[in-house]
């Protein structure tokens, strides 16, 4: 120790001229820039920026004064209040429920943990508007703010649960033991160590929740709750008042910018580091003891409310409205279309997220990080804006060639759900550390061979998870689908919506159930993926 200290101590300072002579006069050589990656990332970012570009072009066309007039009015203030209070309340509730559930499943001896781990995630497969339909069709008190809080919390809390569970699994449980050995009690250890470990994941989950809330349309339409997004949809689709919709969209984008910036600030410099990969070790789970029964009851209640009510309501309406003939052909045709669109968007997104994820993980830089963060703005773009942007471009620059065509719809989905794919792809790539790539290259493998033989092999399961995330988002998407679906084609969501708005609950219900079934498969795969990654850690 002393030896190394003395050696580090700078020796007698050399003569000034001598020191200068050693500093090279030539500018430092740069390592090769990842040109291909940067080009691909920029291309992806440009496509993602299309909705915003459309928004600005339209707003410019309408004139600054007109837009300002449309923004500064009573309606905007009401919408702002509605949107903000709902976002704050639901995000907070989701953070508490999602984190508590994740901790119980990952760190305690809760009976039936494997089963709960799946059941808790499955609500992600139920479209928000189906949850909304389930509650509102059974009980009339479920409407307005109160209804929106209940429905949205139950619909989106898995967005917090999933990342928190994953991070709790990856975090070093030894830190908790160290805290306890330093004389810190159980509760304070939870607050100071466990929550700190999961902090980034909680914030990331909350960001997703807030963004979903800002962009939700169907659920609020059923509940009669007015937010920016529902109003924008009405202005676009019913009143055909493009300038008004653009003005409101601008405010909504600003709001999401604030959310993004807030999350970035809260996240701060808190990075979770862990010891060497060899040190991974499973800690004996916390014993729930007397709390076992209440906690079990809590999980049962959560499952009943988030899963039981929507599914139960759908089953109930099938029998209640049994007189209607169920169109078997239309159901399978709708399911097929939905699945095709989902697969297309999933593949497109996973492929598009790869270059950006590789860029920020392997060649980080301020501008590159900004590029990556900018793609999250897409989440705040209501589906309706993305849909209109693409049809606008198709009409304007492709002579309406692609308007209301399947490729356009798939691209629209891909834009909307890109951030989900990016999160998944980044998580999967971080399992393929750069050191292994370097190792492979020093063993004589070229870049592409390394990508194929090492990076993609290690990241494979995570890439599949990213694909699943996009797929199930497409299955449960309504707004953009309503606007862009090719003429004469029905997806599960649009057909459900047609029946639902018609109050034909009995005919709507089967579509809801099939949607849940189709989306449940990828959610199950997702759950298994996160479960398996835990076992790979041990």
């Amino acid at each position, binding site marked *: 120790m*002393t*030896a*190394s*200290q*003395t*050696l*580090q*101590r*700078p*020796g*007698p300072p050399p003569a000034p001229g001598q020191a200068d002579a*050693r*500093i*090279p006069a*030539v500018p*430092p*050589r*740069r*390592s*090769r820039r990842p040109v291909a990656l940067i080009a691909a990332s920029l291309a992806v970012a440009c496509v993602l920026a299309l909705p915003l570009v459309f928004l600005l072009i339209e707003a410019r066309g309408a004139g600054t004064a007109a837009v300002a007039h449309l923004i500064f009015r009573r309606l905007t203030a009401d919408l702002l209040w509605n949107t903000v209070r709902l976002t704050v309340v639901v995000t907070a509730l989701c953070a508490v429920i999602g984190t508590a559930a994740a901790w119980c499943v990952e760190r305690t001896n809760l009976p039936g943990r494997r089963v709960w781990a799946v059941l808790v995630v499955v609500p992600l497969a139920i479209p928000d508007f189906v949850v909304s339909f389930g509650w509102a069709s059974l009980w009339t008190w479920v409407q307005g703010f109160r209804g929106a809080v209940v429905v949205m919390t139950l619909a989106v809390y898995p967005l917090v649960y999933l990342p928190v569970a994953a991070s709790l699994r990856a975090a070093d449980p030894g830190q908790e033991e160290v805290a306890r050995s330093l004389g810190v009690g159980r509760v304070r250890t939870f607050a100071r160590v466990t929550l700190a470990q999961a902090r980034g994941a909680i914030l990331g989950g909350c960001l997703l929740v807030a963004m979903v809330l800002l962009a939700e349309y169907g659920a609020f339409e059923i509940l009669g709750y007015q937010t920016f997004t529902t109003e924008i949809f009405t202005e676009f689709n019913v009143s055909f008042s493009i300038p008004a919709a653009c003005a409101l969209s601008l405010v909504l984008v600003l709001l999401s910018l604030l959310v993004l910036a807030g999350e970035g600030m809260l996240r701060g410099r808190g990075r979770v580091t862990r010891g*060497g*990969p*060899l040190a991974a070790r499973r800690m004996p789970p916390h014993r729930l003891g007397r709390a076992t029964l209440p906690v079990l009851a809590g999980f049962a209640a959560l499952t009943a409310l988030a899963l039981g009510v929507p599914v139960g309501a759908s089953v109930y309406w099938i029998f209640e409205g049994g007189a209607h003939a169920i169109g078997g052909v239309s159901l399978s045709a709708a399911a097929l279309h939905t699945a095709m669109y989902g697969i297309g968007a999933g593949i497109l997104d996973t492929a598009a997220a790869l270059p950006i994820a590789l860029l920020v993980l392997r060649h980080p830089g301020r501008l590159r990080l900004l590029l990556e963060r900018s793609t999250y703005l897409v989440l705040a773009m209501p589906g309706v804006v993305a849909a209109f942007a693409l049809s606008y471009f198709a009409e304007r620059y492709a002579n309406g060639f692609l308007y209301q065509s399947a490729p356009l719809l798939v691209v629209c989905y891909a834009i909307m759900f890109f951030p989900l794919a990016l999160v998944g792809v980044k998580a999967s790539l971080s399992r393929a550390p750069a*050191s*292994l790539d*370097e*190792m*492979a*290259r*020093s*063993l*004589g*493998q*070229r870049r592409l061979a390394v990508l194929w*033989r*090492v990076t993609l*092999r*290690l990241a494979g399961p995570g890439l599949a998870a990213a694909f699943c995330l996009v797929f199930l988002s497409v299955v449960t998407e309504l707004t953009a689908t309503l606007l862009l679906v090719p003429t004469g084609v029905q997806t599960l969501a649009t057909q459900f919506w047609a029946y639902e708005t018609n109050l034909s609950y009995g005919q709507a219900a089967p579509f809801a159930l099939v949607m849940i079934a189709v989306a449940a498969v990828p959610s199950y795969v997702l759950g298994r993926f996160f479960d398996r990654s835990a076992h790979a850690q041990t």
Partner: protein
Amino acid sequence: MTQLVVTGLHKAFGDHPVLTGLDLEVPAGSLTAILGPSGSGKTTLLRVLAGFERGDAGTVTIGGSVVDGPDAHLAPERRQIGYVPQEGSLFPHLTVAANVGFGLPPRQRKGPAIAELLDAVGLAGLGKRYPHQLSGGQQQRVALARALAIQPKIVLLDEPFASLDAHLRASVRADVQALLAETGVTGILVTHDQDEALSTADRVAVLRDGRIVQCDAPQDLYDRPADADIARFIGDANLIEGVLGTDTVDTILGRLRIEPACLDSLGPGNGAAPGTVRSGPATVLVRPEQIELHADDAGARPPTPGWPGVDGDHELSGRVVSYGYHGHDAVIHVQPDHDSAAPTIIVRTLGGPQLPPGAPVTLHARGPVLAWPDAST
């Protein structure tokens, strides 16, 4: 023949210079240790050699061709350099055999060469296991086999033994040494452990402040360190004050003969004829094993006050401060009696009775020693 030549290598990360004009030559077939404390730029040097980083200035030449220079940069995959990182970095999705065969052309990946290599590193029969089923030492052996499989020009070992247990470290180290000698591959071993460097390598290069300050055979490095800091870094050292004489130096341990090889480098006048009169204060290196220690009977000798005389066969009395028992030897710190503020003297003894703190002892030093004149202030 020289396998690797590095000249004037600079590398900075942002404003933080790491390598500042590093020169190094590594003979073909040798095992050279790069020894330096953590943060001295060892890993950066290896990463530049492997091609993962580019130097800011300077050149790296391997086997006569420039791989990193003002106009050239050879990609890592074309350098034929085997790299064994500290943590092994085995591919977790591949079996041991597939890991070893990773860098080979597809047809040879399942050939007998893999089994031979596994046999050579003492892991015969484990080819079908996965990395997580191996112990740390086994993982290191696989990483070495994988690096050797591509028949590299040079193998870079980045603190490969740091994560191993003491007993495991010795055996893995010996195996690595034997294997490199057998295959004749040039090896570069990076370490912060001077024992490891001295016992494993043919040559040891000391890295300090981004430069190689000395590169010698282990024995030469230990016996003739270039300056006091290196002396202290390579093994235990007593660095005591002294006053230079013609070919002796006067210290609290008496008048000690100066190593003849060291005389040349002492001022005034390099290469001065024997008998040149020297003077002035100096720092003197006395290794702990150069000092004999005798236990006194309790109270038999009163402490000698003041600066002792400088006659030829001087003895220094003191008291034991601490006694560190290491089995094969013991390291004893002794506080000289004449000055309680003086630095303690380190003595290494073989056997002898255990001495409690406070026990009176007598020290007697044997030359020759090294001395460096103090910079005039």
